């Protein structure tokens, strides 16, 4: 079905001088969409031309509207020779195709040239008239919303979460076509930019179709990546989570502060919402074929192109944990029946499990790219599952077709699924995929967190059933429920020590928990969190083809193991017991492998306190050695003590009696109804002598081990006033103020010494990362107290001797005085009886309403919705208070310098901006740029070149957001930063891919947006940030 695209070229400004003689430019513009091109008149002799063109109209299929970008080319008219191109603007019109997003694109866009960078700006106006699509066999998917945000976007409510969608398209890389030998670098770069723009449009359209097929209307956690495979092609692939989202009216929109109750508050209107009319139930049996993402190649033999099965994937073993579905002691069943909890599985449990399974097992991949969830969605977490596989790109038989790659990913996803099963889980959350390519070898990686989900979000009309369901629900309190193990205690997938949950005392928890998701907002945490990184380099012999692939796949398990050990040691050293947002990246170079694992360490109140680290020598007889070990031991103990202080980890001294095997029935009963303060009296009468607390022993048996321990201890401490994490939420900080500074930093280190050892390399790599962090702290010192959030490190080995680290993160200020107070609720279980926890109430209410609780429990269904309304109102009141400084600042700055016409656009990798409320999502931003230079020295060397390129990319993102009418980008990320240089030829090239969600946000206190006001609202952005 056709649509009409209209574009108008208004004016240009700051154009470059194209005619040396007159120092002026005779500019005109070509507007191209698909195969149709229009031209404006030439505006002679002006650097600030006014074209004020007519409306150029393109009548096109909506399929094309989705795939193609609008191309605006600015040229300098030349009477005698060919016209010179000044630069181009690619405008993605996708946001206009969705009636809930932007309605018009209008604004100044930087004119970009791949050789010269930004050269002036052009003012363009774009509109789309879309006719209603009634065609059942359509190929387009206009109207499906895309979000990079990996949680349910604020101001929406998830009516249903359908599940995993994926797609992959392949094309020949223009850089490797024969024609590239004769065309200019500019032409080649532009061909590439255009192709990728087309491919990602196509990809989105195809994913949109799948979503429509599943009955959804949106993709959340959309993650799109490029694989520059070289000779074998250019792959664009994407994964996401299909959802049905309902827009919340602005009145009931939840506040943006740390957490929301999107699913509880507006429960009643959800079921009646019109958007769901006419949708078929997704999980009916008849939909079996369509519910899973159709991967066409399931049947094909995979052997055709892939090398011998080199997939050393494995679940990251020990770190999993969570509560059980089978084993939980629900109040009803558990109380009455004594004996071991392990075997117990009440009938309700079974029912729950069956429901969930039927819901999830029908789909091929029960994966979710989300990292944070509506309350109650996540029941238990099993642990990290990951899979890697090494493939040879030159073995692809039919490189231009996606089949082979589809099969590769299919294989890996199957493996992830089976790992999750082994952990007793039926779903994988926080799922992501990545690749690392070096020459013809490619590592495919996937990782996620095995979990058990609440089935009610996956069924139609979930919420009316949901209320009934509450009785079936697991009784775990939200603050610790997700930690309870999901697997069978007697049949554990890996060795771990189980204890009873330190929070609710009813169910088993592991001693440590590793996950790829964000910390659930309702989780009970002690102290603050911090960034924990494990870094590793491994040398490898240079090799070709299969030999190389085998060598790499042999190395991988060792690297994973070592990274894991490092993480564990550092976690213990900080006296923490859980990791969130774990991301392990392994990059291949010609002669080495780099591994970088980043995560945010946390002390979960529900998990046992980590034991210390004990150093043991191999040769007990040696006295000097003994002494040495003692000093190290002392240093370690000191560090742990110091870290406890820094991160304010002082958990209530708890009894250890429950460690290990199930506890005799009577004692456990008594615990259930006792508050923590009471329980401390009990310590004396309990057996504390299990001695398992210090179970972690490091053995020093060679110099390597000594080095390792040294490097462990030399991790720089964070300067006072700073915190860091790689997740959305920083545990322990809840009162953000409004200053935000997003930044990107890239460093490349050249290894000078050819004969490096693994140890030496490790040291260099560690220093590189540490120094980066140090320089962030220094640069952002004026923002103290502040927290670096969402620190996202990406490592690469662009050339043999080079290590590249790129970081994107955001620094946010907070109010120091109140850091300790979590505004809405404090983790308390004291004396609470089960029913409250069952209802997932913030616990503070228990104190005053304890008398009513018992009544409530008896008639849950009736009063439930009502109660939730009350709660959300309450929390929003509290939220709105700490805002005031934004306003006064913006007033001042607008007065000072009235002339600015540029909208301030804030950017953040997080899904929210502190102190503001997102009122509208305008569409996804997904941009790909190439920049090349043949005058590297003149542009300030490699640093100067990249510095201006990154600044240009930011500028172009901001301009596009502003043109959509937005004032911020959330969930911003730099997916790709490929940098290549050839200093001898004075050349360099860089490719950057960024994405995010364009939004309009207003200060939390403002009721409705005042459009004219938007630009000013945000001028306060980083008053403090310099």
């Amino acid at each position, binding site marked *: 079905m056709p649509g009409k695209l209209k574009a108008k070229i208004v004016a240009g*400004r*700051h154009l470059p001088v194209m005619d040396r003689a007159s120092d002026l430019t005779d500019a005109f513009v070509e507007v191209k969409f698909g195969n149709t091109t229009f031209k404006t008149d030439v505006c002679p002799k002006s650097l600030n031309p006014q074209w004020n063109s007519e409306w150029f109209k393109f009548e096109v299929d909506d399929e094309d509207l989705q795939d193609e970008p609008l191309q605006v080319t600015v040229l300098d008219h030349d009477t005698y020779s060919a016209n010179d191109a000044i630069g181009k603007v690619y405008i993605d019109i996708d946001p206009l195709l969705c009636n809930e997003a932007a309605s018009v694109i209008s604004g*100044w866009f*930087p004119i970009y040239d791949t050789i010269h960078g*930004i050269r002036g700006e052009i003012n363009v106006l774009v509109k789309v008239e879309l006719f209603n699509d009634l065609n059942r066999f359509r190929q387009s998917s206009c109207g499906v919303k895309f979000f990079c945000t990996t949680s349910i976007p604020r101001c929406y409510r998830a009516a249903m979460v359908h599940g995993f969608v994926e797609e992959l398209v392949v094309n020949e890389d223009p850089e490797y076509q024969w024609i590239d030998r004769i065309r200019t670098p500019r032409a080649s770069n532009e061909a590439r930019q255009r192709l990728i723009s087309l491919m990602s449009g196509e990809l989105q359209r195809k994913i949109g179709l799948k979503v429509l097929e599943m009955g959804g209307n949106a993709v959340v956690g959309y993650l799109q990546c490029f694989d520059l495979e070289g000779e074998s092609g250019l792959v664009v692939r994407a994964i996401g989570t299909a959802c049905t989202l309902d827009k919340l009216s602005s009145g009931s929109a939840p506040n943006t502060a740390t957490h929301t109750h999107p699913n509880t508050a507006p429960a009643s209107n959800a079921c009646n919402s019109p958007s769901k009319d006419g949708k078929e139930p997704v999980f009916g049996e008849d939909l079996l074929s369509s519910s899973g993402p159709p991967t066409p190649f399931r049947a094909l033999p995979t052997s055709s192109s892939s090398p011998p099965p080199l997939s050393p994937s494995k679940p990251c073993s020990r770190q999993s944990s969570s509560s059980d579905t089978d084993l939980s002691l629900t109040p009803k069943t558990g109380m009455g029946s004594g004996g071991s909890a392990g075997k117990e599985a009440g009938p309700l449990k079974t029912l729950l499990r069956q429901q969930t399974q039927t819901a999830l097992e029908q789909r091929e991949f029960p994966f979710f790219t989300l990292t944070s969830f509506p309350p109650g969605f996540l029941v238990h977490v099993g642990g990290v599952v990951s899979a890697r596989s090494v493939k040879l790109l030159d073995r692809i038989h039919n490189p231009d077709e996606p089949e082979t790659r589809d099969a590769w990913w299919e294989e890996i996803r199957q493996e992830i699924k089976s790992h999750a099963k082994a952990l007793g889980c039926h779903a994988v959350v926080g799922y992501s995929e990545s690749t690392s390519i070096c020459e013809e070898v490619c590592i495919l990686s996937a990782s996620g967190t095995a979990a058990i989900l609440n089935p009610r979000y996956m069924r139609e009309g979930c919420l009316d059933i949901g209320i009934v369901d509450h009785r079936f629900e697991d009784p775990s309190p939200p603050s610790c429920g997700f930690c309870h193990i999901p697997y069978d205690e007697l049949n554990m997938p890996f060795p771990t020590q189980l204890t009873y949950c330190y929070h609710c005392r009813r169910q088993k928890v592991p001693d440590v928990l590793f996950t790829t998701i964000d910390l659930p907002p309702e989780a009970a945490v002690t102290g603050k969190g911090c960034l924990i990184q494990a870094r590793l380099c491994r040398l490898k012999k240079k090799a070709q083809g299969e030999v190389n692939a085998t060598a790499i796949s042999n190395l991988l398990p060792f690297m994973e193991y070592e990274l894991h050990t490092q993480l564990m040691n550092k976690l213990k050293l900080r006296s923490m017991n859980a990791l969130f947002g774990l991301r392990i990246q392994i990059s291949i170079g010609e002669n080495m492998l780099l591994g970088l694992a980043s995560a945010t360490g946390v002390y979960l109140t529900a998990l046992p306190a980590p034991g210390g680290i004990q150093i043991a020598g191999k040769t007990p007889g040696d006295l000097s050695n003994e002494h040495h070990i003692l000093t190290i031991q002392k240093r370690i103990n000191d560090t742990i003590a110091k870290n406890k202080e820094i991160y304010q980890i002082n958990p209530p001294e708890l009894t250890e009696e429950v460690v290990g095997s199930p506890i005799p029935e009577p004692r456990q009963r008594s615990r259930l109804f006792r508050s923590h303060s009471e329980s401390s009296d009990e310590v004396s009468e309990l057996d504390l002598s299990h001695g398992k607390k210090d179970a972690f022993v490091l053995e020093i048996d060679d110099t390597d081990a000594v080095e390792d321990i040294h490097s462990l201890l030399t991790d720089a401490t964070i*300067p006072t006033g700073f915190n860091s994490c790689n997740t959305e939420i920083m545990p322990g900080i809840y009162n953000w103020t409004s200053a935000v*500074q*997003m*930044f*990107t*930093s*890239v*460093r*490349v*280190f*050249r290894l000078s010494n050819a004969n490096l050892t693994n140890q030496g390399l490790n040291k*260099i790599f560690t*220093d590189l990362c540490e*120094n980066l962090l*140090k*320089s*962030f*702290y*220094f*640069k*952002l*010192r004026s923002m103290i107290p502040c927290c670096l959030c969402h620190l996202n490190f990406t490592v690469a080995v662009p050339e043999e001797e080079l290590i*590249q680290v790129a970081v994107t993160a955001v620094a946010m200020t907070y109010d120091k005085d109140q850091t300790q107070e979590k505004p809405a609720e404090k983790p308390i279980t004291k004396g609470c009886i089960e029913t409250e926890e069952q209802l997932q109430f913030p616990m503070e209410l228990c104190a005053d309403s304890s008398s009513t609780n018992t009544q409530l429990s008896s008639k849950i269904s009736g009063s439930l919705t009502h109660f939730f309304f009350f709660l959300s109102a309450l929390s929003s009141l509290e939220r709105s208070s700490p805002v005031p400084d934004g306003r006064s600042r913006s007033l*001042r*700055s*607008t007065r*000072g*310098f009235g*002339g*600015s*016409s*540029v909208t301030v*656009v*804030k*950017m953040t990798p997080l899904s929210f901006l502190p102190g503001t409320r997102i009122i509208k999502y305008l569409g996804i931003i997904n941009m790909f740029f190439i920049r090349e230079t043949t005058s590297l020295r003149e542009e*300030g060397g490699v*640093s*100067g070149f*990249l*510095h*201006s390129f*990154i*600044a240009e990319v*930011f*500028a172009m993102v*901001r*301009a596009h957001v502003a043109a959509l009418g937005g004032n911020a980008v959330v969930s911003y990320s730099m997916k790709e930063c490929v*940098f290549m240089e050839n200093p001898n030829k004075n050349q360099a090239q860089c490719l950057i891919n960024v994405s995010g969600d364009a939004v309009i946000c207003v200060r939390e206190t403002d009721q409705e947006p005042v459009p004219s006001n938007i630009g000013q609202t945000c*001028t*306060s*952005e*980083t*008053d403090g*940030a*310099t």
Partner: protein
Amino acid sequence: MAMELDVFVGNTTIMDEEVYQLWLDGYTVSDAVKVRMEGGVMEECEASADVLLSDTMDQYRTFQMCERLLYSPAKLANQLLFQIPPHRQAILIERYYAFDDAFVREVLGKKLSKGTKKDLDDISAKTNVTLKSCRRQFDNFKRVFKVVEELKGPLVENIRQHFLLSDKLARDYAAIVFFANNRFETGKRKLQYLTFQDFAFCAGQLINNWTVGAVDNMVEDMDVDLDKEFLQELKELKILITDKDLLDQHKSLVCTALRGKTKAFNEMEANFKNLSRGLVNIAAKLTNTKDVRDFFIDLVEKTPSCVGQIHGRHQKLYLQNVSRLKRISSPAYFFPCLSPPPPPADAVISAPPVRTFSVFDLSAVIISSLSASLLESSVCKSDL
């Protein structure tokens, strides 16, 4: 650790004011790092020399990229490349256009040409301002000069609007442009004791009172060129010396106006004739371009005795005093254009809007504006 590549880019451009100043002052990166280390930033946030070096390089790069925009500061507000909060933009611009008094004193009144630019290394050596900084300042002068040269309207206002400068700085630039345009000689040894601010004050007075713009505010170059007609008319001042009656009348008017306003009053009264003669002689010659250039030298050389007599006893008559003097005395013989807030006595003399110079006016103008430098000069001399 020596990095092959090391960049840090913030969505809001991060700029450290201290580093900016170092960059403006022409320090090299390594010197800047040294200065910063001595300044104690490192202890402040547990940084190492590496960190400091990397930060300094980043900032220097940012400034270099911004410099292009600072050439026409209006661009800074609507460019898209750097997101800089408005108040910070103002700081960037103001600092970029700030200059060293020592440096400006050297080039004041010189032609802003390539030739002068070649001599900058000498000036740099002499003033202890780095060559890089000298070049920036010189280029700033030249840029402002070029832009306002072709504009109509009041000079100070033009500068302020085109370069988004503060009022004070805009006035200083107006003075620099004015001096460069009229090529007043300021470099002679005898004038060395005068500071830039002394000249800037004179320039302000001259612009307000002696230029075409003082009567007509829509001509090109109105505030840059001296009013030829006016200079011509100055010749008539001679009557103040030759005609005894007028001399006395002049004296009495001036004395009435100045009585009690200055401690140097007695000396002035006593030497009024000498003083007046010196000034009138200078004034009468100003139709000659060469004499215009030597205006300030003449003031010092050809009226020293009388001025010296006036201020024989270390009498400090500061610029402020002079201007106050002028303002107070103006109602008696000046017309509205002389002093910025039109004197209330306008109505009394009912001065016509067209300039009709009376001899009294002229002498008073000369005395008041000249004495600015002269009185100051004598003070300084006697101090020596």
